[in-house]
């Protein structure tokens, strides 16, 4: 985890070391002012994985993906996407921001938002054609929102807004989906619908990375996990990495012990219910 080796590992660059990884991060450091939000995080996402990024509030989970995608400036670190610098593989990534990050009173219909995912395909100056509108509708169909295509986005409920964001990402036909809290504040049916679409994408070979807040569903939804609290605590397959010991280290302190116990109870209860 020491910075110098991150920049050149035995003379090779990060991309050469991980040519297949949809997202490889090394030494990623972000700070607001002098307070580091993320410090020297290394993380390599395996191809075809379903990854959960987990950590307490303010641990830098959202900042991690924002910095990896160039939305937030990083003060140190390197990021490669499919073995090349991020800028060259941008079109292979679909980013789904937090629902609360946009103004839903914006004058746009559901279809308009999904069409934003097709801007690259439509072209800079041309208008969206019938083919594009049909494709947008097909993406909405996959998330159960086809009947809502002409609604103003402000009329939707939280879960429906999240579905629209997912449809926009689907329209991009990316290979890596990076999602910020896709299950925050959505109803249970929407959560099931979203996870079904994500699993379907995953079966088709796509890689999914989600910032996730609900520890109880991590083992059920994901196969890979990154535990982060400013620094990386652990990463690896859920079965071996998502342990109460690592959770203790991530959430820290007595308060967290209670929280972790609670999670364990929830997991047991969920297991019994099935």
């Amino acid at each position: 985890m020491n910075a110098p080796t991150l920049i050149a590992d035995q003379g090779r660059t990060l991309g050469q070391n991980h040519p297949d990884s949809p997202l490889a991060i090394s030494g990623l450091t972000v700070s607001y002012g002098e307070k580091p939000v993320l410090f020297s995080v290394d993380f390599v996402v395996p191809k075809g994985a379903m990854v959960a990024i987990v950590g307490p509030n303010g641990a830098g989970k959202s900042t991690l993906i924002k910095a990896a995608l160039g939305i937030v400036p990083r003060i140190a670190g390197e990021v490669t996407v499919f073995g090349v610098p991020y800028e060259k593989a941008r079109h292979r990534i679909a980013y789904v921001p937090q629902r609360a990050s946009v103004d839903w009173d914006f004058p746009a219909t559901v279809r308009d938002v999904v069409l934003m995912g097709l801007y690259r395909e439509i072209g800079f100056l041309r208008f969206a054609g019938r083919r594009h509108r049909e494709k947008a509708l097909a993406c909405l169909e996959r998330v159960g929102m086809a009947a809502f295509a002409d609604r103003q986005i402000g009329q939707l409920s939280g879960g429906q807004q999240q579905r629209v964001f997912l449809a926009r990402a689907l329209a991009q036909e990316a290979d890596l989906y990076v999602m910020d809290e896709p299950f925050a504040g959505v109803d249970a049916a929407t959560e099931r619908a979203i996870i079904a679409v994500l699993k379907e994408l995953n079966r088709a070979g796509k890689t999914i990375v989600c910032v996730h807040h609900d520890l109880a569903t991590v083992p059920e939804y994901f196969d890979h996990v990154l535990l982060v609290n400013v620094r990386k605590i652990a990463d690896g397959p859920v079965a071996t990495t998502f342990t109460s010991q690592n959770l203790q280290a991530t959430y820290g302190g007595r308060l967290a012990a209670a929280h972790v116990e609670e999670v364990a109870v929830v997991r047991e209860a969920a297991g019994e219910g099935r």
Partner: protein
Amino acid sequence: MTAFLAALLLGAGYNTAVVTIGAAILGGSAGAIGTFILLRKRSLVSDAVSHGTLPGLALAFIVMAWLTGDGRDIVALMAGAALSATLGLLCVDWITRRTRLTEDAAIGAVLSVFFGFGIVLLTVIQSLQTGGQAGIAGYLLGSTAGMLRSEAETIAVAALLTGAVVFALRRPFTLVCFDEDYAATRGIDVRLTDLAMMGVLLAVTVIGLKVAGLVLIVALTIIPPVTARFWTDRPGRMVLIAAAFGAAAGYVGAAISASGRDLPTGAVIVLTASAFFALSLVLSPVRGLMSGLVTRLRFRRRVHERQGLLALARGEAIYDPLTIKVLRRAGHIRADGVATLKGRAAAAAAVREEALWALYRRLHPDEAAALDHQGLVPIDRALPPDVVADLSARLEPALTGAR
């Protein structure tokens, strides 16, 4: 009146025709870029830009008067105005980023300092021994009376160019206004896009100074977009409608001013734009006051229909006259109050709807609270099909065979 009508119908000579058309194009461009500025929530910036032009305008006048004896060179004045407005914008940007002041405070400070300095320079101009001092006054409130043909043509062509730039950049503008983080991941340089947006706003302001005046041109970039928001829920259409309202305001304003009366163009343009706004406020089918009234009435009828149908299902007598009227008109009950076949079917459907909505409210209280008109629109129109299927499965396990 006849002079005004002649100007309005482009019959007042070539000069006036060019001026009115130029003002219309300017209004269109201002409405278009103003829409994006409004959606970016930076409308106040246009105020800083317009007031920031005054010192540059006055300095350019003084310099030109000194060099050539007449300060009224439109290109030099525009260049001076653009330079000082840019300086003003940079000041706002610097204050916002380097101090703890917010953007609105920075705008207020810069705006008043620049405007005050400009007024001092105007006083200096009044004392100069040179011709054309009156010409500079027209830039404050706008004047198209006695505008030169070349001036009008310059304004028209420049305004057309800015309109074209807005059209070309509409995609990045829309994306950045809606969701700048997402825009960044699509390869759009947010800072550059914001800069372009400000650049076009600045260009439109400077071009329009002579027509609308620097005190009131800000109205051309704010009122038409706000008016357009009443008529559409789509970004592209909002830009077009704002451009149309802006063009109409510019056209009428310039025509009245050019008809020789002593009316400042800017004031007439603002009044025209405000009239459109007031009309839209009342008449808009989506967000207007009238539609609000209609919606409330319709909602009341829907409540009565639902209550009546539920009462029918329970076999209760209905006494409320409005409920009876609504049910009778929909053909749910006969004149004597007995439910028709259609009424009985509707009552059964209403009971089912009510049960589904009750279940939804119990399972997802937060989501349900966020929905408009919850429970009164057919549930399969309000919720995605998989949610409805899930609710039905819970409600009628025997029918659907689930669980």
